[in-house]
Every structure is written in structure tokens, then in C-alpha cells.
């Protein structure tokens, strides 16, 4: 079967936009839905969007509701009581503490995961399957179980709670960073680095000028996942931190467990959602920006002839080999 649909699927709508369709031009895809199927598709997309969005609606409403007596559908008195009460509960220092914890976890787990992933992908590790398994295992184990046992070990070894907390969160983040970087290195062409070495670049220059720029988008993704682990953790902070490290989730939990401070809970929750969303947005924008010039670089970038020649003939670009 050589009637592969590859040439047909290259977004015919966009290609057709604004010009006459000629004979031989690709028409609409066979798999596009028409009539009742199209209605069903739009309906299911709408329902799914609602499924993901509806739980967040009460947060937005409660955040600025000073009073919201029961049968009313909208808040009865709007205001910023929730903001004041959440600041009084120590939201501001907790926010910075959480941010710092997330950044530290990301800063440690990303290079560790990247190094391990590179060695695993290049096939230079002894017992690669066992190593891969150890690095993926934290995802399969309940964190509270490992942390409960580890608490005794850390106490007897006189490890400070903060160090223990970062250690455990880094290990929980390692499966994500390792996996993200293994995917990236599978599509990474080591010959760029070998060529630079041949031309006399030192290992450091190769690392900073060739290797890291090439895997930068994947590094950003991995760091984002690791940040999420540190940012959203509750149970490890409770057990290992032992109350000494009060992060934003701890403030939210104590606020949500009480009764009558719904607007403070809503404000705190929105505060906890915003930083990851901002990072996700930045990640998306950066990804879009880096995707465009890379295709043009071979012709326009005179600075680096090594990268100028090869991308066109890259043998294992994702999608080319699989």
C-alpha cells in the first residue's frame, strides 16, 4: 500500500485558504467528520472542555465573595475579605517558600535526570534495564509509605528536615525528568557534538554551545515537571518537614479543613494555580518561537557552520524514522 495519506494530511484547509482549488489539490480528509458526525464531534469537544473547566468556576466566584448565602447562584456581597484573610494566614511567605522549593527541586532533578537519560540512551551504562527501573520506580510506589520509613532513617542520621525534604522530592521528580530527557535524547544527534570536537572545541564548549542548546526545549519541559512536584507536594512536606517547613499547600490544607473560610481557600487556590499556568504558557510560547527559526537556520545563520550544514540531512529527526 503506497497510498499513504502523508501528503494528504498536511493540513489541506490551511493550504487551500485564500486561493482557488485546482484539480489535483488535496480535498478534505476522508477522516473529517461531516453532518451528524461533525455535530457529535463539536458537542463532545464542548462537553470535554466543560468537564475540565467547571470545577474551577467556584474558585473564581468564591475568591471575591465576602458573603454568599445559600440559595443564591452568585455571591451576594463582593469584596476582598478572602485576600486579607489569606494574607493573615501567612500566604505570602508560604508562597515564596513553595516557589523556592519547586525551583530547587527542578534545579537538582533536571541535570540528574538529563545525565542519567543521556547515559542510558547512548548505551554506555552497565545494567541499563535495572538502572532505568530504579529511576522509574518512584512513580509506582505510594510516596507516603517510603517517606514514613525514611523519616526514621533521616532522624537517626541527623539529616535536617529541609535537606531530607528536597532529597525525597528530587527522587519523586526523577522519573519525570529522566523520561522526558530519554525521549529527547532518542531524537538527539550526537554527531553535532562529535563534529565540534573534531574541529577542536573543548568538551565544555561542546556542552555549552552545542549539547545544551540542542536539548534546551526538553530541559525546560523536564524542569517544569520537576517544579510541579515540588510546588504541589503536600504529604512529603507534612511528614518529613514535620511542620517546620510551611509551604502553600500546607496553608491551603489547614484553611480548607476548617469551616467558613471558603473565600480564603479560593484565593489561596488561585494563587497556587497561577505560577504553574504562567510557566506552562511561557513554555508554550518559547516552544513555538524555537520551532520556527530552527527550520530557517541552515541558510541564515553564518556564525556556526557546523549546525548550518547538517540539520537538512539529520537522519533521526523525530517522525523521520518512526
Amino acid at each position, binding site marked *: 500500500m503506497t497510498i499513504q495519506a502523508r501528503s494528504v494530511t498536511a493540513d489541506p484547509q490551511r493550504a487551500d485558504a485564500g486561493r482557488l482549488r485546482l484539480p489535483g489539490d488535496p480535498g478534505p480528509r476522508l477522516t473529517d467528520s461531516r453532518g451528524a458526525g461533525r455535530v457529535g464531534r463539536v458537542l463532545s469537544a464542548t462537553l470535554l472542555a466543560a468537564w475540565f473547566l467547571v470545577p474551577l468556576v467556584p474558585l473564581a466566584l468564591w475568591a471575591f465573595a465576602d458573603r454568599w448565602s445559600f440559595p443564591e447562584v452568585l455571591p451576594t456581597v463582593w469584596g476582598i475579605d478572602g485576600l486579607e484573610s489569606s494574607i493573615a494566614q501567612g500566604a505570602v511567605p508560604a508562597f515564596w517558600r513553595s516557589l523556592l522549593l519547586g525551583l530547587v527541586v527542578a534545579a537538582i532533578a533536571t541535570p540528574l535526570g538529563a545525565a542519567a537519560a543521556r547515559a542510558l540512551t*547512548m548505551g554506555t551504562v552497565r545494567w541499563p534495564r535495572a538502572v532505568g527501573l530504579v529511576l522509574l520506580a518512584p512513580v509506582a510506589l505510594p510516596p507516603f509509605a517510603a517517606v514514613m520509613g525514611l523519616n526514621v532513617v533521616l532522624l537517626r542520621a541527623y539529616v535536617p528536615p529541609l535537606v531530607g525534604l528536597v532529597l525525597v522530592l528530587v527522587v519523586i521528580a526523577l522519573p519525570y525528568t529522566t523520561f522526558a530527557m530519554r525521549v529527547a535524547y532518542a531524537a538527539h544527534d550526537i554527531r553535532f557534538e562529535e563534529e565540534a570536537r573534531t574541529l577542536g572545541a573543548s568538551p565544555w564548549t561542546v556542552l555549552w554551545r552545542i549539547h545544551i542548546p540542542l536539548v534546551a526545549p526538553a530541559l525546560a519541559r523536564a524542569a517544569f515537571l520537576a517544579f510541579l512536584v515540588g510546588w504541589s507536594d503536600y504529604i512529603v512536606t507534612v511528614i518529613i518537614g514535620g511542620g517546620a517547613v510551611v509551604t502553600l499547600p500546607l496553608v491551603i490544607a489547614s484553611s480548607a479543613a476548617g469551616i467558613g473560610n471558603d473565600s480564603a481557600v479560593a484565593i489561596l487556590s488561585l494563587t497556587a494555580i497561577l505560577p504553574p499556568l504562567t510557566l506552562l504558557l511561557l513554555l508554550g510560547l518559547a516552544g513555538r518561537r524555537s520551532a520556527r527559526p530552527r527550520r530557517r537556520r541552515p541558510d541564515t545563520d553564518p556564525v556556526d557552520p557546523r549546525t548550518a550544514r547538517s540539520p537538512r540531512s539529520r537522519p533521526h529527526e523525530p517522525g523521520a524514522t518512526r
Partner: protein
Amino acid sequence: MSLAPPRGRTAAAGRTGLRGTLLVLPAVVPALFVLVGGIGAAVAQSLGLLPLIGPVRLSLDAYTAQSGALPVSIAVSLGIATASTAIAAVVGFAAALVIVSGRWGGRIVATISAATVTVPHLIGAAAIGLLLADSGLLPRLLGIDADAWPRLVGGPWWVAVVAEYAWKESAFVALVVAGTLATRVASFDETAALLGAGRLKRLRFVMIPLCLPALVVSSTIVFVYTLGSYEVAWLLGRSYPEPLPVMALRLFGSITLTARPEAAAVAVVTTTISLVVVALAFFALRRTALWR
């Protein structure tokens, strides 16, 4: 192209040994320390080998002490995890199909589910509480009185807990399945359509087989996560019967001296169930057609 150097991977493969090991060690050592140290200490503690005070004595007391409540907790935890995973898998699969369809609807669903994944579970629990409680947004919208509203939060069927897990994990399943599908599904789907396969047949013979490995892997992660997660069941659940993590944390924080080994025993039981589920999923995965 014929003058190109040999492929990097084969050239690098010769350097097996020290360098690769050095690159892997900084990640493996802490992981092993937490896994072996944590689980090992929990096992030792549950068997009475690491008492806070008193003599070291090997016994199964910690496991039998909760013999009344432990089976109930196991059943509750398994029930919550099964229900959440089933809903998350179905909704996530549907969302993945919409995402890979590639239209604007798919792009919107992809963006929203990516945003949902970043929401911490604790915040999800707070939001679901404000939505489903008897004074929440849903009874207000539907105009149902607080007394007539079923007890979704803290009620007998754990509806709010399951809803939170299903909500957030369906976004995770959708992204994982869509991610593995996006690269190859379009050509297969189009080819099947060209050969005359209808909508249902394409779903049955193209989409589901292509999705199955990713679906099994992501569902397993969801199940194990739900089984071992504390904060949602603690915030939205009821005080009895307790899911395993809630029970373990209550015992862990208790002032009774015998409670610590009992908490460790619950942790060991939870870990064992998780490992069994992962092993079962692994064997199920090896039987799917697309594995390797």
C-alpha cells in the same frame, strides 16, 4: 551522506563502563537511598525491628492489630482507585481522540487539559468541595435545597473523592495517549478510511489498538497514584471507613507507642498492592500487539 562518520550511538557504545556509570550514579544513589531506605525501614518498623523504645522483637503484631479495620480500608482504597481509574481512562481516551482529530476543538481541549494537569490535587480537592458540597455551586445552580442534596462530600459513596481523581487524572491520560497517538495515527486512520472502514470500525480496529499500550501505562500510573494519595480522600472523604493512606497517617500521628509500627504495616500493605498492580499491568502490556 556516504562519507558521514559512523552513527554516534555505535561509536559511543564502545565506551561502556566508567563514564556512563558516573553519569547515572548521581540520580541512582538518591533514588536507591529513598526507595530501599524508605521501604526497608517501613518493613523493619512494621515487623517490630525499629521500635521507638523497648526491646527489638520480631513480630507480626502490627499487622494483626488492625485486623478489623485493615480489610475494610483495603476494600475502600481499591474501590476508589478502580472507579477513578475507570472514569479517567474513558474520559481521557475520549479527550485524546478529540485532541488528535486536529481541529480547533482538539486544540482547545489539549490546552485545557494541559492546564488541568498543572493544578495540584489539593487545590482540585478544594475546588470540587466548593462545587459538590451541599452548599456548593452545583446545588445552587440546580436550585436544590441543601437538605435534599445527596451527600457527595463525605458521603457513603466517596463521590467527591472519585470525581476529583477522575477529573484531574483524565487530563493526564488524555495528554499521554494523545502524545503517543499524534505521531502516527493520522496516516493509519486515513488509510483505513480509504479502504472503506466506517467510523466505528476505525475506532475498534485502528484507534483502540494503537491507544492500548499508552492507555494501560497511564491507567496503571493513575491507579497506583490514587491508591497512595492522601490529601484528596482526607479532605473530601469521611472519617470511617478510611482509605489506606488516611489510616496510615492517622496512626503515624497518634501518640500511642504501638501506633508507629501499625502505620508502617499499613504502608507496607499499600506498597505491596501497588507492586502487584504494576506487575499485572506489565504482563497485560506484554500481551498487547504493539509492545516492541
